[in-house]
């Protein structure tokens, strides 16, 4: 099985939701609240999160 590849080029700094099968970006907003609200209206969409800016470090909770 191969990992599903994503490409968020052009969406840096935005919050995105992707197609559940293709992982192509279908929604992108600067405000995460808007993304969560709009994604609830669509089927087959998964909210991913924020696309980092180039070189940006990301921290996780563990």
């Amino acid at each position, binding site marked *: 099985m191969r*990992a599903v590849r994503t490409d*968020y080029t052009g969406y840096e700094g935005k919050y995105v939701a992707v197609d559940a099968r293709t992982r192509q970006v279908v929604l992108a907003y600067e405000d995460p609240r808007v993304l969560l609200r709009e994604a*609830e209206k669509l089927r087959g969409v998964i909210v991913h*999160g*924020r696309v*980092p800016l180039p070189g940006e470090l990301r921290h996780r*909770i563990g």
Partner: protein
Amino acid sequence: MASSSMVVFRFPASFVTALADQRPRIYSYVEEAEVRRLGRPVLRPLVPVSFAVGDRFTAHLDGLVDTGADAVLAGDLLADRLGLDLSENEGETTHAVGGRVLTARYKTVRLRLHPYGDLDGAIHREWPAQVGFVAGWHDYGFVLLGSVGFLDRVTVTASRFAQAVAVEHRDAFDQRFDTGPV
């Protein structure tokens, strides 16, 4: 009609559903093109989940499976979508992350695991889970799937080699390795 030599078993639909539920669900790892380590792509074990409270529910969300995390944690914007008042919570904990101290406020919600590539809103499994909602935590993903609330409800087998994650019923581990009662 069954003949006299046939034995016909009839099971309620719920039993059939329960049997079908024993099948492992396979989820591909997700390669994030914009993240690389030592020149190689980073693959992440993401599974589609959502939260529900009453008749309110969130969108489907990428849930990062994290065996090193003790809890299920989520951004507090999801609590807003569910209409939860986090000032009336079931407890608080603090986490040190990247030099910051974050507070998680816990509420019990229904955690839903969805099939891979789901296009029709199907639910593979659902259970009540205590989720720690963290204020302002949405810089990367919205949901972290740790031990209590996720890994105590399902058996997860993750393989970077196979580039996939398998999610099975929680007794699968004991059945496979005969670890005996806890």
